[in-house]
């Protein structure tokens, strides 16, 4: 059974603290600073979207260099092995993987970034001179802080993010089955307000 991060959109205030915590944690561990969560806004919903750690992870299946592996905790990318081919990003059903690289500004004699295309270009097509990209995705912070758990969850000021693991999901399943049972009662024209004697 896999573990992943879920969100309650009515609690999300779109503040991006999860992204900041994600970025800071990974950056300090020497990984790409790019946040692994994306905030998505529609008129009705605000939610941080991130990897579901799929059971039959398509990203893992398509990786040509085996840079994506399944650990006991999560599906993780080895940034050093990744060749930046973007196949995983294309097959991800949730848009939860995208390429990211470290800008050469300030190291290669360039004092500031030299954009090569408009920012509106999809991250799948974007490139920059001298920047080598690799896939970034949520690793539940397991690669650098297995004890601490996902940093985004503990950073969220409104407790909108949750770790969904086997215990939580079993509880939810029971609730759903109870609700389904109650719905059956209604279908059979019976009262759902039966009290215990």
């Amino acid at each position, binding site marked *: 059974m896999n573990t992943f991060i879920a969100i309650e*959109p*009515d*609690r*999300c*205030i*779109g*503040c*991006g*603290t999860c*992204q*900041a915590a994600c*970025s*800071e944690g990974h*950056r300090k561990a020497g990984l790409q*600073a*790019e*946040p692994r969560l994306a905030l998505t*806004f*529609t*008129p*009705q*919903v*605000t939610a941080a979207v991130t990897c579901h750690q799929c059971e039959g992870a398509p990203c893992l299946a398509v990786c040509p260099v085996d840079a994506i592996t399944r650990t006991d905790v999560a599906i993780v990318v080895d940034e050093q092995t990744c060749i930046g081919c973007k196949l995983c990003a294309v097959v991800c059903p949730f848009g939860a993987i995208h390429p990211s690289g470290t800008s050469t500004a300030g190291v290669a004699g360039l*004092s*500031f*970034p*030299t*954009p*090569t*295309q*408009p*920012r*509106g270009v999809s991250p799948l097509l974007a490139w920059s001179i001298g920047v080598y990209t690799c896939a970034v995705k949520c690793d539940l912070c397991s690669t650098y802080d297995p004890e601490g758990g996902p940093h985004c969850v503990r950073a969220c*000021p*409104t407790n909108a993010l949750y770790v969904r693991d086997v215990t939580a999901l079993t509880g939810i399943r029971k609730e759903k089955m109870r609700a389904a049972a109650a719905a059956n009662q209604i279908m059979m024209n019976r009262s759902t307000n039966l009290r215990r004697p």
Partner: protein
Amino acid sequence: MSCGVPGMEDAGCLFLFGYNPSASHPIVSRRIVKAKEKGAKIIVADPRVIETARIADIYLPLKNGSNIAFLNAFANVIVTEGLVDEEFVKEHTLGFDEWWDTIKEYTPENTQEITGVDPQLLREAARMYATAEPSSILCWGMGVCQHLQNVEAVHACAAIACVSGQIGKPNSGVAPVRGQNNVQGACDMGALPNYFPGYQKVTDPDIRQKFADHWNVPVEALSDHVGYKVSDLPRLIEEGKIRAFYNFGEDPVQTEPDVPHLTKMLEKLDLFVCQDIFMTQTAAMADVVLPATSWGEHEGVFTACDRTFQYFSQAVPPKGECKHDWQIFSELAERMGYDMHWENAQQIWDEECRALWPAAYGATYEKMAGTGHAQWPIPTLDHPGTPDLFLGGKFTTPEGKAHLVAHDYRDPTEMPDEEFPLILCTVREVGHYSCRSMTGNCKVLALLADEPGELRIHPDDAKERGIRDGELVRAWSRRGETMSRAVIDERVNAGTVYMTYQWWIGKCNNLTLHHVDDRSRTPEDKFSACQVEALPDQKWAERHLQELYSQLKEDLAETAAAQHVEPTCGGTE
């Protein structure tokens, strides 16, 4: 605020009017989410679908600049539908009849054209607000204060709270949530042209005598009239009335409206002193820069928007030439011939604040130790502090009663026209604080939001102009122009674009109108006319942006380098 922030969780109804807590105060926003989960009704009136609008029971999308028409109609419903708390009005307010003379002219139906709000929805909202148990709180932010009719709208909000009896009991009343950290504290300490510390009027001879005695100066040395407000600065320089300007912890070249004009005026000053922790664009213009310490380098007391004093301690020692603000002030005073001497911040708190401001006397360092706090009024040492003001309908006017005041609606100053068909409204975003001098250097925050900021535009307005999502655009007004990044946003209303005011290259204050109201002299930052166009060569624009930004950072760093001295402590010998 007449209530405490924690108490917002326990109100029966929260009415957010011109207030977007998710962007300006995430911590308050958290309380609102909790209030909703505890069963509170939420009403949101805002031209944009703000985060809280998604969880609101009623969302009222009003047109920009229509506040007074909306609030008057809201008040009208409370009266015509019999929702008035007659006893409260009789016992605790004055001027109901004159107030009603104005309000009766505004109905949800006859204001619909101005406000754009469905009359039925407005009626429902007024009913929900007025009848909520145990209490309702009317919250507002800069969506009230930065309009032409700002003081008028505050009068209207206060009157609505009074006539519906939603004030004077726990967790009720009015919640104008202050814009910035410790802006409440700055006002508490008398950083206003009309007050000494503790809201004690400079025009009151007894108060002047009290301060003169305490400060050991002749009473004539203290000014007996109200001073100038910062928004009047450019005009007064132009008129030759101000020739020297001492700027302390502000970046007006970033935050004031109509920056092109302000910059020209600042250049005319004979003497310009700037006291700041970073080399801001304003500091770079100054004749003298006095480097101060940041919040991590000194101790002090902040006041939260709900009047709560909180102590904060020094985390690291100051670097280089930096001095605490109070040290700079006392050294200046001494050079000017007045003996001003303190040992530490606590001494100032005890001898200047608590000793001179009766309502803060009980706020000792002991009470604020650790994560403790003290909420004024807290007049005695054993006083627990006061989360809720005006309990039992006791107001602080001479009569002890609330004065009901109503005003007629006026159009904003600069209505959109053919040349400038879009309304520009300046707003906040959560990631960067105020003028960005403190958060701009933070890598994580820059990763989430960076130059040139965003211009949020409705899909229809963008389509009309051939603007695509994420592209750089040019925006301009009668004052000036700027570059920004268009974000096509279904949550904003058509006809208005929204920009945040902290970007150096994407500076929206190059466009904003400098028009202030007569009473508070607050600029009309929420409403001016502008136009936006797509930039044809995006690649060039992206590079140009980077060049401009890098050049500006380089210039500021170079200006700051003159001040750099090696720390005198440490060393290896």
